[in-house]
C-alpha cells in the first residue's frame, strides 16, 4: 500500500512514516467507481458533510451553553441574542439536524431501491443502520438540551416508554432519569452523551467507508463492475460531482437557516419547561413521526402483553427488522430497475412511510388511529412480501455489463438526436 513513489520529497518523507498520502491516493485517484452512478449516490458524502457541520456547530454552542435546568433555556437565548453570530450557529445546528435526517433517509431509500443491502454489502448496510440508530439517540438527547416544553415532555414520554418492559421496566426508567422524573440529573447526562455520541458516529462512519471500499460501490444497474471499462477513478469524477451536490445542498440547507429557521421546529419549545403544565399536543421532531405512529397504533391489551409494551416492541422491531433485509429479500436481482413488481411495492412503501409520518404528527382522533394501524400493518407486511416476491418475480433482462449498458444508452440518445 505504501509503495507509491511521490515526486515531492516532503510528501514522500511523510508517507514513508505514515501512509497518509498513499491512502489518500489509493482511495481517490486510484479508486475504481462505477461510471454510471446517478445523483442518488451523492447523499453519502452529503451525510458526512452534515455530520462535520453538526460537530463543529455543536462544539461552538457548548462554549456558551449551561446544562443546568435553571440556566439551560436562558443560556440558549443568550447565544441567540448576545453571542456574536450565536443565532447563526444555533440555527445551523437545529436545522442541520433536520437536514441530516433528510439526507440519510434519501440515502437509505436509495439503498432499498437499488438493493445496495444485498451481498456482499450486508456489513455496509448494518453499519449504516447502526449510524442511523446512533443518530436517533443523539438527536433525541440534543432536543432535550434547550429545556423547552417539548424538550421536557418529549423526554418524559420517551423515557417513560421503557417502563413497558415487565419486571425491570421501572428500574430502567429510574436509572435513565437519575431521579423520580426528568430533571437536572437527566439533563446533565443527556448533555454528556449528546457530546459523546457524534464521535462514535464518526468512528462508525469510518468503518462504513472501510466496508464500502472493501466491496466497492454498487450502481443503479445493480450489477458488479467487471473490469476497468466499467469504472472511473473517484477523483476527479466523483469529487467534482460531489462538490456540485454540496453546492445544491447548501443552497437548500441555508435557505432554511436564513429565511425559515423555525420551519422544522415546534413553537412550544420556545416556552421554558414546566413540569406542571403539559402541552396540548406532545409530538417528537418530524424524523421520528413514523415510529411514533407505529408506537401509538397498539391500543388493545393482550394477556401478558399490554398495549404499551406491544407498541414499544413494534417500534423497535420496525428498525431491527431492517438488519435482516439482506436475507428477507430473496431476489437474486439487486436493482429495482429490473424488478417491475418490486419497484411498485417500493413506492407503496415510501408512500406508506409518509402516511405514517403524517399520522404520527396529528392528535390520535377521528379516522387517524385506524389509518395508522393499517399503515403499521402495511409496513411490517412489506417484509414477508419481499421474501415471497423474490421467489416469484420475473425480473427484466440484466445488461451484460455496466459499460455495455452505458454504451447502449449513448447510442440510443444519439439516435433520438
Amino acid at each position, binding site marked *: 500500500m505504501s509503495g507509491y513513489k511521490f515526486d515531492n520529497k516532503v510528501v514522500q518523507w511523510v508517507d514513508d512514516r505514515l501512509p497518509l498520502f498513499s491512502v489518500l491516493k489509493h482511495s481517490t485517484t486510484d479508486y475504481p467507481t462505477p461510471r454510471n452512478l446517478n445523483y442518488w449516490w451523492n447523499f453519502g458524502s452529503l451525510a458526512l458533510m452534515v455530520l462535520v457541520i453538526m460537530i463543529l456547530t455543536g462544539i461552538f454552542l457548548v462554549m456558551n451553553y449551561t446544562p443546568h435546568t435553571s440556566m439551560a433555556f436562558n443560556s440558549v437565548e443568550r447565544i441567540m*441574542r448576545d453571542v456574536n453570530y450565536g443565532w447563526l450557529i444555533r440555527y445551523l445546528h437545529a436545522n442541520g439536524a433536520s437536514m441530516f435526517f433528510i439526507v440519510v433517509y434519501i440515502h437509505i431509500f436509495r439503498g432499498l431501491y437499488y438493493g445496495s443491502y444485498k451481498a456482499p454489502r450486508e456489513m455496509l448496510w448494518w453499519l449504516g443502520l447502526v449510524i442511523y440508530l446512533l443518530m436517533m439517540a443523539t438527536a433525541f438527547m440534543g432536543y432535550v438540551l434547550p429545556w423547552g416544553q417539548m424538550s421536557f415532555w418529549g423526554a418524559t414520554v420517551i423515557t417513560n416508554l421503557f417502563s413497558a418492559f415487565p419486571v425491570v421496566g421501572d428500574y430502567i426508567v429510574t436509572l435513565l432519569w437519575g431521579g423520580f422524573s426528568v430533571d437536572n440529573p437527566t439533563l446533565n447526562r443527556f448533555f454528556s452523551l449528546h457530546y459523546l455520541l457524534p464521535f462514535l458516529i464518526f468512528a462508525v462512519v469510518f468503518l462504513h467507508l472501510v466496508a464500502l471500499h472493501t466491496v466497492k460501490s454498487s450502481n443503479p444497474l445493480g450489477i458488479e463492475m467487471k473490469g476497468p471499462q466499467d469504472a472511473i477513478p473517484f477523483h*476527479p469524477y466523483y469529487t467534482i460531482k460531489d462538490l*456540485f451536490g454540496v*453546492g445544491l445542498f447548501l443552497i437548500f440547507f441555508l435557505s432554511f437557516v436564513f*429565511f425559515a429557521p423555525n420551519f422544522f421546529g415546534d*413553537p412550544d419549545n420556545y416556552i421554558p419547561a414546566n413540569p406542571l403544565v403539559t402541552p396540548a399536543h406532545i409530538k417528537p421532531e418530524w424524523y421520528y413521526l413514523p415510529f411514533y405512529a407505529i408506537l401509538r397504533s397498539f391500543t388493545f391489551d393482550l394477556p401478558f402483553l399490554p398495549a404499551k409494551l406491544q407498541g414499544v416492541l413494534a417500534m423497535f422491531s420496525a428498525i431491527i427488522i431492517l438488519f435482516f433485509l439482506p436475507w428477507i429479500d430473496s431476489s437474486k436481482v439487486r436493482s429495482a430497475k429490473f424488478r417491475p413488481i418490486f419497484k411498485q411495492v417500493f413506492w407503496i412503501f415510501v408512500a406508506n412511510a409518509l402516511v405514517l409520518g403524517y399520522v404520527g*404528527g396529528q392528535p390520535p382522533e377521528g379516522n387517524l388511529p385506524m389509518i395508522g394501524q393499517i399503515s403499521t400493518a402495511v409496513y411490517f407486511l412489506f417484509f414477508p412480501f419481499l421474501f415471497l416476491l423474490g421467489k416469484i418475480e420475473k425480473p427484466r433482462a440484466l445488461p451484460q455489463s455496466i459499460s455495455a449498458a452505458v454504451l447502449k444508452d449513448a447510442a440510443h440518445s444519439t439516435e433520438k438526436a
Partner: protein
Amino acid sequence: MRKFLLSTLAAGLLAAATPALANEGPEIEKQAWSWQGVFGQYDKAQLRRGWQVFHDICSNCHSMKLVAYRNLSYLGFSDDEVKDFAAEKQVTDGPNDQGDMFQRPARPSDHFVPPFPNDQAARVANNGALPPDLSLMAKARNGGPDYVYAILTGFEDTPPAGHVVPDGMYYNKAFGGGNIGMPPPISDDAVTYADGTKATKEQIAKDVVSFLNWTAEPELDQRKSLGIKVIGFLIVLTAMFYALKRKIWADLH
C-alpha cells in the same frame, strides 16, 4: 423519476395540510408585516411605537426578561434615552458593605425589570392567572405574530349565543376555547404616539406585535441580509462547480 415526483407531491400536500389541521382553534387571518419575505426588514419607527405600547400598557402585567435596556438602542434611541428608560425602574442589588441588599435604578446593561417580583405575586395580582413573559411570544405560538395580532384584536363584548364566560375571564374569538384571562388591553387611542401616528386599535396592535417579533427575533435584519449574500454566493459557486463537472466529465461521453 415520475413515481418519486408523485411521492414528493403527496408528501408536500400532507405537509401543507398538517399545520391547518393541527390548529384546533379558529383559522388565523394572515397579516402583512414589514419584515416578511426574503427582503423583509423591520421598520424601526414602528418598533419604537411598539415599544411605547409595551412600555405604557403591557409591561404593567407582562415581564420581558430576555431583553436588556441596551437592546433598545437598535430601535434608534440615543444612549441617554436608553439610560432614562432603564432608570425608571428599580433593581435589587447587593449585598453592600453592611451586608444589606439595596435598591438602585436599573442600568442599560440590566434586563427589563419585571412588574412582579415572582410568579406567585403575578398570579395574586391577576386573578390567579400568570401573564406570560413576552420575550419570545411571537415564536412561541402556532401562527406566530398573526396569532398574537388576532388575540389583541379578537376581544368581543358579546360572546356567541350559548357560550359561557366564567367570572374574571373575557371572550376572545381567537383564543382556544374562547375564554382568556387577560382583559382587553388595547382600544382606540389607548396610547398617544410620540411620533403622532393615529393610534387606532389596529395600528396599536400592528405596532406592538412588530415590537414583539423584534424581541423574539432581534437578529432578523442581519439574518436576512446575510442570507441574501450567502445564497447569492452559493448560486455562483454551484454554477462554477457544475461547469467544472461538465468539463471534467466531457471526455467520458
